[in-house]
């Protein structure tokens, strides 16, 4: 579309202003994390080219972020592997097979996409406590597997439904079993959809706050965002180490986003029934 030169320049100003607006809180954190330490710290931290990278090591030690990050990685990896695996199976059934009750069952799964954690976390905590399962890895991971399976089923079903029907028919005529059709014909083709699902589930699990907050009191089982929230409560002498901790917590997902942003954006826009 042809527009005047003035309008074009105005567009650049708007682009720049909003990009800056989106970045300011993030830059605030980065600047503080790389700045000189607080007075309460253990003295001057190591600096490189004016960037005080020593803040990160100090925050890592003072805030126990090593433990939290390990827990977060374990939870996220397990939730991703289990829920994506189960979603591929259930999505395959919903997307390519006809069976009695399929519509009703599918709506049941859809319910889980919209169901807020707030509703289920209360009974889950008390029931898992009765079973002696609170304060375990499982109490943090399994509810999130369930939430991700609800979305994953919806996501994989949509993909398998759109994937070529004739391809499946041809494979069947060749005498391929369902298992072979799924794993050797459909899954290799579905790789982009599966990567998107992996990326979304990883992000949701990594950033989840309420479930670990409720399920876990043992410090060694805290996830990274939970650890950061507690660190904020305890460490009040200044902002530098808190900011460094915040950067540590945000980095894995942000780094993944920078590499796979198409998957993030497409996934969150297309799969936007969730959240």
């Amino acid at each position: 579309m042809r527009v005047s030169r003035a309008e074009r320049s105005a567009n650049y100003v708007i682009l720049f202003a909003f990009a800056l607006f989106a970045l300011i809180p993030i830059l605030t954190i980065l600047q503080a994390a790389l700045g000189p330490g607080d007075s309460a710290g253990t003295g001057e931290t190591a600096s490189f080219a004016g960037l005080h990278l020593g803040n990160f090591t100090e925050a890592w030690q003072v805030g126990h972020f090593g433990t939290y990050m390990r827990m977060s990685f374990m939870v996220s990896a397990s939730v991703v592997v289990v829920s994506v695996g189960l979603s591929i199976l259930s999505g395959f059934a919903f997307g390519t097979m006809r069976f009695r009750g399929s519509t009703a069952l599918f709506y049941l799964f859809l319910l889980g996409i919209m169901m807020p954690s707030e509703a289920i976390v209360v009974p889950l905590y008390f029931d898992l406590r009765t079973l002696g399962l609170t304060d375990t890895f499982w109490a943090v991971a399994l509810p999130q597997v369930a939430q991700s399976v609800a979305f994953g089923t919806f996501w994989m079903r949509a993909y398998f439904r759109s994937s070529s029907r004739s391809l499946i028919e041809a494979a069947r005529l060749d005498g391929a079993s369902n298992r072979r059709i799924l794993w050797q014909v459909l899954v290799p083709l579905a790789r982009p959809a599966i990567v998107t699902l992996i990326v979304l589930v990883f992000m949701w699990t990594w950033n989840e706050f309420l479930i670990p907050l409720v399920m876990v009191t043992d410090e060694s089982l805290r996830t990274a965002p939970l650890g950061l929230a507690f660190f904020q409560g305890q460490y009040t002498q200044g902002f530098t180490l808190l900011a460094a901790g915040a950067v540590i917590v945000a980095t894995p997902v942000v780094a993944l986003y920078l590499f796979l942003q198409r998957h993030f954006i497409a996934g969150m826009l297309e799969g936007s029934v969730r959240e």
Partner: protein
Amino acid sequence: MVGRGSRRDVGPPGEPRRIAYLYLLPAFIVYAAFLLYPLLRAVQISLYDWDGLTLGRWIGLDNYREVLTDEGLRSAFGHALVLMVFFALIPIVVGLLLASVLNRAKVRGLSFFRTVVFLPQVVAMVVVAVAWRRIYAPDGSLNSLLGAVGLDSLTRGWLGDYDFALPAVGFVGSWFEIGLVTVLLLAGMGRINGELYEAARLDGAGPVREFFAVTLPSVRGEIAVALTLTVIAALRTFDLVYVTTRGGPGNSTSVPSYEVYHRAFELGRVGSAAAIGVSLTIVIFAISFAITRIGDRGTS
């Protein structure tokens, strides 16, 4: 003729039936055990007066009556409505303006812009809250900015102020959602047929008429999606409130999700917390159903 009889139960060729249940089973077991069953249990618990330790007492719908009548809970739901303005209304209005301006001219750097404005969506809400707490602090950058332009009279501890804490929390929501909404609307506007604009221009339409006659009706579906997402996000605000204000000062920023946590795990009023959780679920289902219906009617 061969094999006709043997296929009788199978239905359409190549459409196996019972094996489907086997593929569904593992997903369904986890889903039922950790989402469906807890939801039913939440409904059950919400009918009791229970402190989480001793035996509960059946009180019927009293907890729900409290949701409707209790001053504190009513204001919590009222605060959620205020948050909807910040999470949904403002981002959609700003996003519509922003996207339609950007859509008119092909500017360079649009994909970089998209990457940047979408970034808030992937940062953990706890990190976002830590950043904004800093900005809103009495010695934070917002107050320094106000001081620098001579508006010292406006400086305050934003999150500790009875009148300003809720809008301050809400503004974080606007910041968080504007990128998502803009990217969503940009994608929608990119699909509009250029001939529609040509036709509008031949009719002598200016940018404003063009927006109302062509752009707005074409992205009705995207607006419905954006509305659903952001309204639900407003209703589910927990991390942000927990880290920034914990519902304070007083209860000026308490929201339903925070009340669920507060009552169940800090006050020992588990039945009431479950009732709030169930009410929240019903409201969310109703809203997404209503918006989807309206969106569907708009597009068809």
